[in-house]
């Protein structure tokens, strides 16, 4: 039973290799295997979630090497939740890509897709900092291929920027890991936590440098201002299903911050105290504001959705950087919501792009006008955080969680004001695209034969998932509260990885 933990990494890895070797010309076979793997992954992720929900932390030692010496995979509530979220998203994105024919516009879409999933799942499951770097590289190198899938000059040029930016972030990641290794002599996350807690004052300065470098890397992945420049062009120019999958990639950065800065560099650790919280929160608030203003200023639907992704990351990080159990739970709820909502928005953008120009200008009514307008309306409600969808519940949880903190007025003001800006931006875009040209009884265009129903079904399913997240927010927040409690008591994680001995002063 314990071997199931490694399955979310091994299955995509093996499948992707088989796809490249044995099915390279056969799109139908690729779709069948990719779809079967996505369904299987969802079942597996649900199983892992049930296993982790009770609060047990399962440790998988690769090659059976004991913990600080070998690489470990660790399944706790947070890892299980993130793996499940990526499995849900992968299934919907795959359905959309296959249904809309996006996967056939270039070669190797499905193989790259599986490698991307391997990297994402690995990053969520690993308990080793250098292994985290390796999985980051795997998910990035797959994302480079997916980003330029389908070709085109604009996509290539935006892709080069994206790769260049991420290569620099990777170099920074290695500098951070080198610094941390130089101080602590270990790269196992639990072992780092033990060593940092026992660190003498003479090593504090170097340790803080390492922690800050690591924070910068995760902030760059999470598109935190001012490290967000890669995101708008990348997301706006990537194929829409790929941009929807990328919705989980920014969350990998948020996951990294949450994991490392609760486990090793947490609020109670003397050596790294106070390096993350205050200014990270300011950056998150500015990210939120700039994201929403960017939505208001966007001239194309793709860029609107991209800035929506930035804004939602800002909201997530405002909650996460409070580092209290309640705000962590609220931030995790918003992570689930924002992943689904951003993906849904990119689907709607692609539905519009398949029928007309995505520029925010009035144009004749498009095929299936009413349905797509309704879907845009629903995702806009979710993005802006209006009731009844889960964006409202998420923002409410965050507002409630920061109520006891020091910066309550500032955070409330920014979140509420930016929500208003978002409503204005989305209302403007929706009226220009869907109402601008259809007045005066102009009949909507007929449905061309090339438009297929599966993309619509996938989009409806995603909107339904956002609705379900709002309806079942009771059980979901109960699980997230337990997750936050587990994260803010890192002793359990450390004891599970290293055994109970290490709690008394490390393994020296």
């Amino acid at each position, binding site marked *: 039973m314990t071997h199931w933990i490694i399955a979310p990494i091994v299955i995509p890895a093996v499948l992707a290799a088989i796809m490249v070797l044995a099915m390279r010309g056969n799109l139908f076979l690729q779709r069948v295997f990719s779809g079967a793997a996505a369904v299987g992954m969802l079942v597996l992720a649900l199983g892992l979630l049930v296993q982790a929900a009770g609060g047990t932390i399962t440790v998988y030692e690769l090659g059976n090497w004991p913990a600080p010496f070998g690489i470990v995979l660790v399944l706790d509530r947070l890892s299980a939740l993130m793996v499940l979220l990526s499995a849900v998203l992968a299934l919907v994105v795959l359905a959309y890509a296959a249904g809309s024919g996006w996967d056939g516009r270039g070669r190797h879409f499905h193989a790259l897709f599986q490698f991307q999933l391997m990297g994402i799942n690995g990053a969520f499951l690993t308990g080793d900092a*250098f292994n985290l770097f390796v999985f980051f*590289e795997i998910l990035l190198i797959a994302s480079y291929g997916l980003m330029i899938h389908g070709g085109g000059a604009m996509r*290539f040029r935006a*892709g080069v920027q994206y790769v260049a930016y991420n*290569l620099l972030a*990777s170099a920074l990641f*290695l500098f951070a*890991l080198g610094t941390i290794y130089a101080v602590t002599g270990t790269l196992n996350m639990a072992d780092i936590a033990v060593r940092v807690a026992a660190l003498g004052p003479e090593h504090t300065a170097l340790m803080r440098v390492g922690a800050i470098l690591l924070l910068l890397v995760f902030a760059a992945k999470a598109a935190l201002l001012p490290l967000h420049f890669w995101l708008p062009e990348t997301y706006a120019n990537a194929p829409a299903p790929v941009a929807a999958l990328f919705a989980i990639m920014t969350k990998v950065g948020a996951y990294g911050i949450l994991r490392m800065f609760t486990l090793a560099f947490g609020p109670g650790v003397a050596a790294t105290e106070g390096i993350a919280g205050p200014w990270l929160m300011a950056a998150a608030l500015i990210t939120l504001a700039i994201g929403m203003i960017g939505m208001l200023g966007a001239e194309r639907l793709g860029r609107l959705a991209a800035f929506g992704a930035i804004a939602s990351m800002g909201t997530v990080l405002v909650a996460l950087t409070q580092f209290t159990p309640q705000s962590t739970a609220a931030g995790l709820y918003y992570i689930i919501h924002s992943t689904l909502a951003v993906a849904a928005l990119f689907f709607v953008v692609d539905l519009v792009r398949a029928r007309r120009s995505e520029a925010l200008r009035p144009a004749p009514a498009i095929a299936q006008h009413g349905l797509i307008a309704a879907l845009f309306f629903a995702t806009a409600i979710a993005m802006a955080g209006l009731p009844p969808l889960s964006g409202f519940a998420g923002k409410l949880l965050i507002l409630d969680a920061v109520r006891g903190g020091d910066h309550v007025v500032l955070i409330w003001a920014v979140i509420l004001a930016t929500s208003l800006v978002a409503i204005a931006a989305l209302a403007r875009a929706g009226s220009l695209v869907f109402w601008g040209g259809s007045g005066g009884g102009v009949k909507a265009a007929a449905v061309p034969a090339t438009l297929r129903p599966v993309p619509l079904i996938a989009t409806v399913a995603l909107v339904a998932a956002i609705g379900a997240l709002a309806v079942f927010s009771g059980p979901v927040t109960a699980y997230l509260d337990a997750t936050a409690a587990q994260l803010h008591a890192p002793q359990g994680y450390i004891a599970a990885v290293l055994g109970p001995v290490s709690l008394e002063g490390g393994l020296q």
Partner: protein
Amino acid sequence: MELLVASAIGVLTAAGIYLVLRQRTFPVIVGMTLISYAVNVFLFASGRLVVNMPPVLRDGVDSYTDPLPQALVLTAIVIAFGMTAVIVLMSLGSFISGRTDRIDLSPKQDASE
């Protein structure tokens, strides 16, 4: 030796950053290669600088060099090599399809797409 290694890392990084900030893809790629060299040397130094020490346990030897950074550097080299190949190919694709090797995206081209 510490001075030599530290200044090598510093010079490589500084040159790399200067090149990365250029506007054309070729200097940017060269700059990133320089930065990745700097990272590799830096990782070696993270295991402490010693000379002529064995990395593997042996009878009659008291002090060792840290073997782990060598494994880390090897991984970093492989990844950097692969990534450089990817960005070279993408830059070529961008140059051939876009007829320019500038790395920035001007708003004019943006709108005409």
